[in-house]
């Protein structure tokens, strides 16, 4: 089944999420609540299987106190908001110059062949999406990709194999809370 036809999403604004939303709103003057829209959409998306349905965007509009269209036009402008369901693990390969001259296209072919999907598609089990994106600012460590909050750099087919295996085993850390000491 093509998951992209699913349009309904269970909306669950937990107390913790609402607290975070209120914290973000507090970063801007009281009459400029709309300014918090981008950060709030990130938080809400993270808490909802990494995509934004129309219902969810309407909910965000209601919370902030702006018109739904103001949310739609923003969500459709920025590439990081997913307007349809995606895989649990989205491999976002940087395709721009340095990654390209360091073989990212061949690496994407390798990944897609291994997962049995095309670029932009999701595996039938909903586990993996492979996407090509533009420069992620890691040119010196090419080829690379983003997975959740993190960058995976200097990629090789062997590293891709390992990542896929780790994702399947649930061993991949997707979010950083600002405390991990990141070394590469």
């Amino acid at each position, binding site marked *: 089944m093509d998951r992209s036809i699913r349009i309904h999403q269970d909306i669950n604004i937990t107390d913790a999420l609402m607290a975070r939303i209120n914290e973000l709103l507090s*970063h801007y003057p009281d009459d400029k609540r709309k300014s918090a829209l981008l950060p709030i959409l990130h938080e809400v998306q993270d808490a909802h299987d990494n995509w934004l349905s129309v219902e969810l965007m309407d909910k965000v509009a209601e919370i902030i106190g702006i018109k739904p269209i103001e949310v739609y036009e923003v969500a459709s402008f920025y590439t990081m908001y997913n307007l349809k369901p995606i895989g649990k693990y989205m491999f976002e390969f940087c395709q721009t110059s340095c990654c390209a001259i360091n073989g990212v296209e061949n690496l994407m072919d390798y990944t897609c062949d291994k997962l049995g999907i095309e670029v932009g598609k999701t595996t039938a089990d909903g586990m993996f999406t492979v996407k090509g994106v533009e420069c992620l600012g890691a040119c010196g460590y090419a080829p690379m990709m983003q997975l959740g909050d993190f960058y995976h750099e200097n990629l090789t087919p062997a590293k891709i194999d390992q990542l896929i295996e780790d994702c399947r085993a649930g061993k991949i850390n997707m979010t950083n809370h600002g405390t991990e000491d990141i070394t590469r």
Partner: protein
Amino acid sequence: MAQKILLDKINVPGIKGYEVYRQNGGYASVEKALKMTPDEIVEEVKTSGLRGRGGAGFPAGMKWSFIDKKSGKPRHLVCNADESEPGTFKDRFLMEYIPHLLIEGMITSSYALGANLSYIYIRGEYMWVFKILEKAIAEAKAAGWLGKNIKGSGYDLELYVHCGAGAYICGEETALIESLEGKRGNPRIKPPFPAVSGLWANPTVVNNVETIAAVPWIVMNTGAEYAKIGIGRSTGTKLISASGHIKNPGVYEIELGLSVYEFMNSDEYLGGMSSDRPLKAFVPGGSSVPILPANLIYKTANGEDRLMSYESLSDGGFATGSMLGSGGFIVYNDTSCIVRNTWNFSRFYHHESCGQCSPCREGTGWLEKVLHRIENGHGREEDIDLLWSIQAKIEGNTICPLGDAAAWPVAAAIRHFRDEFEYHVRFPEKIKNRDHFVEEPFEKVKHLIAKATV
């Protein structure tokens, strides 16, 4: 060893955290600044000759002096951390490994501008860095460097980090402001400039991460000392993000005026090429600036040594020069295909155009389309002139510089590598494989074009 002022403490263990940063002289510039008048700090920055490190190279002190103080409206400092220029990854390095340097620079600079509410706008993809900065801000606040009446000075400042969500255009300062207001990143028509009407129509200064991070050193050591570093109007140090076919890719802090030859070949820096394949081309300042062929890299057209400075890299204008830009230094060896690389850049600009101005929205699409067909063996002889004509119609005809940035790499590629485009058009069967120059570099097949000319 060259002088370092931004990354000098980068290897101190624990420098990411507040305590170690403070023990190593951190936040001293705030203490000193709070005893100075804001105008004195602006004067120091003017004297330093510090230029905007995001790419445009506009004098930072002058930009600061434009901020409207007469209207009585609240003022804002916004740090541009939307680093998205292909080839550039220096700001991320600085924020990730020494986040408090940026926070300190934001406090000192906000005080100089009389801003009481400031933001760091970071690209959404750098989400882990966003969280590092949030933590650093919380630590600074807990230590009394932010909030009301900072260290008893009577000065108040709130500082927040705000994340984007994947749009190169938000690196343009007015698009960034739109985005910070919770809107699409459509650049505004200037004037009015942000210094008069920026964030929420208040006077606003937008500065790059690296620019703001240089301010603490300037306050501590004076602008005159800063101006002694570097060469001519290229004062101070610059972070260079080096990538491509080189031995040691990474982020380097250099004194402006270092020779390109030394930067490329010394072991302290890039250590030469990554393999025995020869140097073919380089882009010195991010994808937007003109690419230069090997013969114009180490020497300018009139035979002078090419230096890592704003002036020397642009020596010769676009005919034989380029630009320092953001310091995104990309090196290509002879396995790289200039046509493919130019198509890659054009795809990037097409994807990132906000769509407001037709020359850019339509033009970037045509550039990508025509380059794609040349690279894939369906090019026509007249396509090269067509590309030239399209880029010329974009340049200068758009609200923001993204149009120029899309046009320049195409113009430079045709200017310096026209024969490579001709080869693609005339020998489509030889470029079928995407890695066509890996097995057979262009130098080896170049002679075919001469034979094929009617």
